[in-house]
């Protein structure tokens, strides 16, 4: 057992995995990962080649080069940094390189904000990365270790993004049970090189190696691109199975089992909150509170957002009367947040479905204390009793500032500006 914040827990897990290459650039709230890992390197605790690159774009490019050359490659980022990596994220997954990255979830500018929400990872939603969201530092540690096994599985071969909430997890000290180095080493095993079929049918190792001149990242036009994208989609489907298998195996080792979803008191729940990340902890506490008041409350935490475990979610929620889906990122102009839209469409062909509402919450690190989630359960109670949804898209913990909402800017010309029409100096 060690006292660690989420960032340190990730860095510690990476140390035990000892990947060949770590390339990273510092950004708040990810910085601790790079700093702590630098110390491991400086003290000779890893044999990793650590590359403090000049930008996140290069962090991902270097990870791509390293993974292509047969190395295990790790990086970590957040917010603007992840956004700067954006085009390279698609290349990492399109080239089927099993890179592992911790994304310390943080809001995106503007206005600049360093605190936690899921906007950054949601921006990379369709980049072909597996996205796992952690509830606490323990899970952050456990997930980084599992991530290699998932990424490198022969049926998957996709990069994995381990998401932890900025500051809430990254900077908060918790007790983390760690495995002995040897156990981690044994669990992740030796890095294996996939053998693939060349266009002419011959088999070749998929790695940049002098003995096997493969061309990676070729130009892929109308006649093949589509098929290659289909292969990526299939790999994501396989990942649904592999994430569970690896989570189970890890559970056998540690007693901490992980799946695609994490249902809490859902067996007989009538009202449920669906949420991702650290807020699930608060929601579980509130569910206990509601249970003590006789309300059949439950929480469904979605751990794997990509691939999306549609069947498991439908199964877990189908007997619920009303559920609230909590989104910690906005999708401007969309009818609901990313998680809500996904869950609503999962129920499209189901006869039995709960009444669903959506809350935007916690943007830019806005606190989500228990009483707000209690309010959600009370709202759900009313909805379940009346059968009336009311507003389907709601805001949680947002000041009701009607004046600000209704304010419309006046426009003036440069001539008016020069003549000092609006005050000024």
């Amino acid at each position: 057992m060690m006292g660690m914040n989420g960032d340190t827990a990730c860095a510690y897990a990476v140390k035990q995995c000892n990947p060949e290459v770590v390339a990273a650039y510092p950004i708040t709230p990810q910085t601790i990962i790079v700093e702590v890992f630098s110390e491991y390197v400086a003290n000779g605790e890893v044999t990793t080649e650590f590359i403090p690159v000049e930008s996140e774009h290069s962090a991902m490019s270097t990870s791509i080069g390293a993974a292509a050359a047969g190395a295990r490659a790790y990086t970590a980022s957040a917010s603007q940094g992840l956004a700067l990596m954006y085009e390279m994220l698609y290349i990492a997954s399109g080239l089927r390189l099993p890179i592992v990255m911790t994304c310390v979830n943080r809001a995106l500018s503007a206005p600049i904000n360093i605190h936690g929400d899921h906007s950054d990872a949601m921006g990379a939603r369709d980049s072909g990365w597996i996205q796992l969201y952690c509830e606490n530092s323990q899970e952050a540690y456990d997930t980084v270790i599992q991530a290699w096994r998932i990424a490198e599985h022969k049926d998957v071969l996709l990069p994995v993004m381990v998401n932890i909430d900025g500051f809430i997890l990254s900077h908060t000290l918790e007790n983390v049970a760690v495995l002995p180095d040897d156990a981690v080493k044994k669990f992740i095993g030796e890095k294996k090189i996939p053998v693939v079929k060349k266009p002419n049918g011959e088999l070749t190792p998929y790695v940049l190696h002098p003995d096997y001149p493969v061309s990676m990242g070729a130009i892929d036009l109308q006649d093949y691109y589509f098929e290659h994208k289909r292969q990526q989609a299939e790999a994501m489907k396989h990942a649904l199975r592999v994430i569970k298998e690896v989570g189970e195996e890890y559970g056998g080792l540690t007693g901490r089992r992980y799946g695609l979803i994490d249902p809490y008191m859902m067996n007989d729940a009538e009202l449920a909150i669906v949420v991702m990340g650290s807020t699930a902890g608060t929601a579980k506490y509130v569910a206990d509170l509601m249970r003590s008041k006789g309300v059949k409350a439950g929480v469904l935490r979605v751990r794997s957002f990509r691939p999306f475990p549609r069947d498991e979610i439908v199964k877990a929620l189908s007997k619920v009367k009303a559920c609230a889906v909590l989104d910690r990122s906005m999708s401007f102009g969309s009818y609901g947040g990313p998680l809500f839209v996904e869950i609503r469409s999962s129920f499209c062909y189901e006869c039995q479905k709960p009444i669903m509402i959506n809350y935007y919450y916690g943007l830019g690190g806005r606190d989500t204390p228990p009483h707000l989630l209690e309010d959600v359960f009370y709202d759900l109670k009313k909805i379940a009793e009346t059968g009336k949804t009311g507003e389907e898209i709601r805001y949680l913990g947002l000041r009701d500032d009607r004046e600000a909402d209704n304010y419309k800017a006046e426009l003036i010309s440069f001539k008016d500006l020069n003549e000092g029409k609006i005050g000024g100096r």
Partner: protein
Amino acid sequence: MSVVKPKDLALTEERLAPGHRLCPGCGEPTTVKLVLKASDDPVIVCSATGCLEVSTSIYPYTSWNVPWIHSAFENAAATAAGVEAAIKALKRKGVYKYDKVNVLAVAGDGGTFDIGFQALSGAFERYHRIVYLLLDNEAYMNTGIQRSGGTPSYASTTTSPDGRVIPGKIQTKKQISRIMVEHEPAYVATISAAFWQDLIQKAKKAFAADGPAFLHSITPCPRGWRHADNISIELCRLAVQTCIFPLWEAEKVEGKMVYKLSAPSKQIAKNPDKKKPVVEYLKLQGRYRHLFKPEEKTDLINKIQEWVDTEWDIILERCGEK
């Protein structure tokens, strides 16, 4: 280093195989083939997005007889850094078969002077042992001839066209190689396919360097320069003879970057009469047509000559020839 014989070169394997789809007269494949022949060790190539990449790797075909990766436009140096780091770490773990593998990053002027400069500068500062080959055709040719930081003055491109008011690109060319020397890497050299022995020697030095090496090749593009396919090598030669693209190298000696003029340029330095007027180089290229038609714009041609003279002076100074 011993002089390379053509016969020996001809007997080495073609690492960039025939059958690629680059244009007739393109300067890129000649340069790349020669540079790859200069390495006796295995080479892994990291290509930036561009003509070379799209014309050699149309799936399911490939022209590369060496391991090759393309990941994006602006990151050939960063990708190469990753490959180099991976090999280093795998060697440390004792699972790598080869003791020495050369990592060659290849990019054009757009991917080097402009969008790729940050990654290049970072990789050189971190001192990765990579060879970076710049194929300078002085514009964004893969997207249809747009000006870059490498485009010289008054060249007409689609984003610096010769119009009624503006006569082509009005700014001068960024002196990328000298900027790279200021990074104090292991080795920097300019090369021209017309002087292939000089090119091979320099590429050999680059591969042998114990740190980052930068090779800057003048690389004619018949489409962009609007010249006849069969004079590319002649233009490579004229660029050197007119001193618009002097041949030199710089390497670290006792911590200091020492410039040295290469033989073809040194002859001109010794006999300034041999320096051809730049107009001889300009008039063969359609991108400078507006300087000659409908009437000759002597003032603009003179300005180009002045720029060439000044830059040549700077190089002579750096090389201790003045």
